[in-house]
């Protein structure tokens, strides 16, 4: 490397390095972004161009969006999804953080394994028992019911991701706080919590995405009043449904809020990485 830098000059080497890094980044991230871009692009294409992927120039249509918005509950369900996923994420995060702290600091490995087991059980096997319990408890077709059901996803997830982050925070920092007279709770709030911010943001993003995309729980436990965004999209993925463009429009509408939220939180994530005592 040093020889190469000497051979071509420091400036040229730097330009080459930057170019290579950017190209590598585009190669890795590009396909993912392209899928989203193509989804959006197909949603504004006339249907008859759907099978002509080489056609890039056409008069874009908003027809599919107006059809989807007028003829489905997608907007209402996106709002429902925002409510349900936000609460499920917040509760999952709080429970996850507290449980992870306990597991990490008191070395409760068996408890951690027990929590992981709940993630291993396929949802499909839980749906009918869930439905029966919910019916008797009056939780079917309610926001509360769906939030509680999504905790099955977010809490184990939160616990397992947060364990790693808590373990990375040196115990000595907490002990220093104790020596200065802080109680365990104060040390947790003043020392552990700020240092866990990056982990919490990452966990929140993942919990939110998993909760947002969950279809089965909303399908079975939701109902005529409360349902979620993926249920609206799935309607358009049916063999008997109307239009490929509508399917893409519905998918774009449902992806958009989570995309914006993740972008926003990612800013906080970067900020979180630059503060704290152990960076």
């Amino acid at each position, binding site marked *: 490397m040093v020889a190469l830098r000497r051979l071509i000059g420091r400036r040229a080497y730097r330009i080459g390095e930057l170019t290579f890094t950017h190209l590598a980044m585009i190669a890795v991230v590009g396909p993912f972004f392209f899928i989203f871009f193509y989804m959006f692009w197909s949603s504004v294409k006339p249907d*008859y161009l759907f099978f002509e992927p080489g056609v890039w120039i056409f008069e874009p249509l908003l027809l599919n969006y107006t059809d989807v918005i007028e003829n489905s509950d997608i907007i209402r369900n996106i709002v429902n999804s925002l409510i349900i996923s936000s609460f499920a994420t917040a509760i999952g995060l709080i429970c996850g953080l507290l449980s992870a702290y306990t597991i990490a600091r008191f070395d409760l490995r068996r408890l951690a394994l027990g929590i992981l087991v709940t993630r291993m059980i396929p949802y499909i096997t839980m749906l009918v028992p869930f*439905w029966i319990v919910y*019916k008797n408890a009056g939780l079917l077709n309610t926001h509360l019911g769906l939030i509680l059901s999504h905790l099955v996803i977010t809490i184990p997830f939160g616990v397992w991701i947060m364990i790693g982050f808590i373990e990375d925070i040196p115990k000595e920092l907490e002990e220093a706080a104790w020596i200065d007279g802080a109680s365990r709770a104060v040390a947790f709030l003043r020392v552990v919590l700020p240092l866990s911010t990056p982990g919490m943001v990452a966990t929140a993003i993942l919990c939110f995405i998993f909760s947002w995309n969950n279809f089965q729980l909303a*399908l079975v436990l939701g109902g005529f009043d409360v349902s979620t965004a993926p249920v609206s999209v*799935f309607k358009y993925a*049916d*063999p008997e*449904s109307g239009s490929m463009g509508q399917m893409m429009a519905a998918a774009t509408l449902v992806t958009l809020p989570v995309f914006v939220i993740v972008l926003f939180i990612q800013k906080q994530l970067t900020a979180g990485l630059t503060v704290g005592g152990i960076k």
Partner: protein
Amino acid sequence: MLNKKTTIARTGLSLLILLALAAPVTLAAEIDWRKHEGTTLNAIFLTAAYIDAWFRPMAKRFQKETGIRVKMVVLQAGQARKKQDIMLGGKDDTLDVIHLQMDNRGGKLTVAGHLEDLQPYLDDPSKTPAGYNYPQDWLGGCLNTAKVIKGQPLNNIVWSAQAQLLHIRTDLFKKYNVKVPTNLQELEAAAKKLTIDEDGDGKPEIYGFLSRGRDRLITASFATYLWNHGGSWFKTVNGKKVSNVNSKESVDAFMYYANLIRKYAPPAALNNRPPANAALFAAGKTAMLSELNYWIALSEDKRRSRVVGKTTTILVPRGPAGSHPNLPTMSFAIPKYSRKKDAAWMYIVWMTQQHIMQLGQNNSVPVCRRSVWLDKSFTPPTPGWGESARLAAEYGIAIAKPQAIAIGQMRDAAGEVMNVAVRTGDRAAVQAEADKQAAVMNALIEKTEVGMNFRGVRPADAKLMPESEQIVPIKADGLERLGR
């Protein structure tokens, strides 16, 4: 004597008074549409193009006229069935109306006793308008699906006749002067001629034929070809229902259909679902599309199609065993556990009235009432579509899919045979796979259907389509002279 006269007079007078009192009652037998005002009904629908185009506006109109609100949950068919199954299995009293295909789940739900007997509602003049005219005004093919099990009560009102027809590009048939097919040999010849590779690069610009090409989805589109060859999903041997997918006629049908897919359909047919196939046809990529009749709404939609004014539909051509259009239908039913059965029945009756069905029919939603097909206000998208859809609804075999309790697995088994046929084109391999899947189907029957009696694909009361009817849709569009 006088007393006797007085008695007669009094009796006569009493009778007159009774008649006078009874007359307004008879006149008042029209149902009170506002009777359930303020009620909210919960309904699950299987998604389809016509749900947004017709059901939603009609739900608003229904609310305006009756004061009953219908909350519609529209789901992809598999998910709708899953939700229905859980709600019905759990005797949920909040589900009031279900939208179902009797030829798919009707048998299962009937056997489980989940559906309300609708005959008492139909017979009650305070619940059913005098001119409702069921079943007299219903087309024969539709009625064949209403009851899928012998001895079944009337637990659904069948409303739509979604026949599998052949959508054709009239401009291409005219341009290349190709005979519009009336039999299966002519269909293959037309598919061959209309697979057009203008630039000679080995990749046709237009493919001759397109239909569903893989797995369980093929059962609905393949059924017509199966029956037209003389094959069937099942047969009865010594009073016992057994699989017939491995008979010579059935294997002939698998070979024929797979040959069309392999040679004349775009490669996408192997993966495509119906909307994608319909979009390919609307994009002008294929000359023929074997699909449900309502897809003409897409190919004739100026905003979504390149072939507006260039298509029509005909019946799937006759085979050695005649012409048996497959007629998947949709029905309304009321769960036995609903608390709002009367209001639910009102919705069903309202939706299936002649003038409401007429609105659907006039918007390319083919319905089961005979009178709406004959009404002057009905102008079909093309004359051929009108004739072919009507003939299919009159003579079609409504029980399209392999009727069984384990219908999903039965469809998978049939799909496997087709997969081998499309992949290999080798008769011996197809026969071997058909034998294997027939054994699978027979095992499923043994396991799941003890003591049940499905009516079979062609109920005894179904009418056979006369050979002369085959050309009626072709003549309606003036295409009968092509290819001469």
